[in-house]
């Protein structure tokens, strides 16, 4: 069941992952439940879906989309990463809705995962968002803009804090920063718990929890030079002052106080001697 984050502008949809020892991107021994997120940005009749969720949640995603955009409706898509937690519902979505445009990075066209007939029809709808690389290959300041509708864009950049090729998105209209596989630490004790951490929720997050989730996937952080990563992150948040952090996994973090608190956790997690 989807949840509205910003009326008529932004919803989060997706399923819940039970943490039972079979998930690699959470700390060893983690229990509870983790949301898996896709986000639908809406402007009038135009829509952009950020990531597509997990295949195991395919039916939930499809039913939510049908309710939000109408059966067979048109939608553009943007993948923050080409990893399976972001892309694995591309084919079922394409089978039921009209994918108008697909924005991805990397050398592989995700439509190539399809059978030939579908691929033939869809391949040309892909837009490469990282065609122009910087000399150093690092973070690209506002490298690309995805027009959701005239007057509303999603600004895209490749973050300095990443593991594999990754893109963050910034929607100024809703103050939302899409952070892909960082800020994924918000857990739920029960599958029907709150998937949004805001000022109405008791937030028991600790820096150890944030570090545990970060290091589970970014296992190199504790042995790395993290100063540049902290500086980049601090500057990014100072410049954008986001209202919402929207990761591809974990609870959505909503409200500037919540965002600032969790930024502090993350900066401390990027100072491993503090954890």
């Amino acid at each position, binding site marked *: 069941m989807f949840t509205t984050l910003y009326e008529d502008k932004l919803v989060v949809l997706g399923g819940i*992952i039970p943490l039972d*020892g*079979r*998930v*690699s*991107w959470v700390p060893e021994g983690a229990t509870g439940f983790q949301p*898996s997120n896709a986000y639908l940005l809406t402007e009038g009749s135009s829509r952009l879906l950020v990531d597509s969720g*997990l*295949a*195991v949640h395919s039916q939930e995603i499809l039913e939510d989309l049908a309710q939000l955009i109408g059966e067979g409706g048109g939608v553009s898509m943007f993948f923050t990463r*080409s*990893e*399976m*937690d972001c*892309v*694995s519902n591309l084919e079922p979505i394409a089978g039921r809705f009209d994918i108008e445009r697909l924005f991805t990075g990397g*050398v*592989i066209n*995700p439509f*190539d*995962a*399809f059978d*030939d007939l579908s*691929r*033939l029809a869809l*391949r040309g709808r892909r837009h490469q968002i990282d065609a122009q*690389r910087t000399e150093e*290959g690092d973070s690209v300041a506002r490298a690309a803009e995805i027009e959701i509708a005239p007057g509303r864009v999603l600004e895209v950049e490749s973050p300095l804090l*990443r*593991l*594999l090729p990754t893109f963050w998105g910034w929607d100024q209209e809703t103050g939302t920063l899409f952070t892909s596989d960082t800020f994924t630490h918000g857990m739920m004790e029960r599958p029907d718990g709150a998937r949004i951490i805001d000022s109405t929720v008791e937030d028991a997050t600790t820096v150890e929890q944030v570090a545990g989730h970060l290091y*589970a*996937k*970014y*296992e*190199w*952080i504790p*042995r*790395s*030079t*993290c*100063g*540049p*990563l902290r500086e980049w992150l601090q500057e990014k948040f100072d410049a954008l002052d986001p209202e919402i952090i929207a990761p591809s996994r974990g609870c959505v973090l909503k409200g500037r106080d919540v965002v600032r608190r969790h930024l502090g956790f993350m900066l401390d997690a990027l100072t491993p001697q503090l954890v």
Partner: protein
Amino acid sequence: MEELVETMSSDLPRTVAKGVTWMSSCLPFHLEDRVIHGHNSTYLVQGDHSSILVDTGNPSSWPIISRTLDGLLDGKELTYVFPTHPELPHTGNLPRLVEKYPQIQVIGDVRDYHLFYPQIEPNLHAKVPGDKVDLGGQEFMVVEALIRDLPNTQWGFAPQAGVLFTADGFCYMHRPELDDEDPVHLPGECGLTTGELQVPIAVENAAFFTGSALYWARFANDADAVYDRVLHLIDDLGVQSVAPTHGNFISNIREVEPIIRAGHKRAYRYETAQP
């Protein structure tokens, strides 16, 4: 019509060690003045009664892989598949393999796969480093991945053949003039081992590739520790050759390792930066 299927060199498949066949489909990159290729290799290890496929290849190369397996297996079923880690070039054909060989066992660190491919959950069989499968006069052993990006990456080793399968480890470019961050080669070089290449690997290209594909190398200044462990593993296991997914088959690992190590060191960015 645009070419939709990745091409395979007429030099492949090729037997590269006892019971080990190098199957590679090559992704063509069309530049302004030339075409270059990027390996996306799979390897078939065959014993007297069983066989294992290391990595699955891209979905777009499934017709080639399926056809090549038909020829190599000569009517037998494929017994095992070992996906080194869950990125599309390594796992994207898992559903097709299960459909073609319903009894196949998917072995390795299979965390997350039930979320990405729920339809193949009965075929998943978790293995840890040190676990072996008997192929009949040939074994396949799961090995800890010492160079990796995703946390659920594993390497494999075929003791009787002396081949170490290293996934994204030991991927490199060998032509300094090819300015791309993917490990590429020229048409005609698809089926050559490193010992057969006319142009040696360049440290600067190994550095560029390492800093891009193994992004953490920019931040972690521990190349010597990493490659010392790799050399210990090579000695302990008696490795004769190394089989990466992207890049030519490495027949002269003792000559190649110092170049990759030097490239890895050069990928580190922050020699004088704060910790």
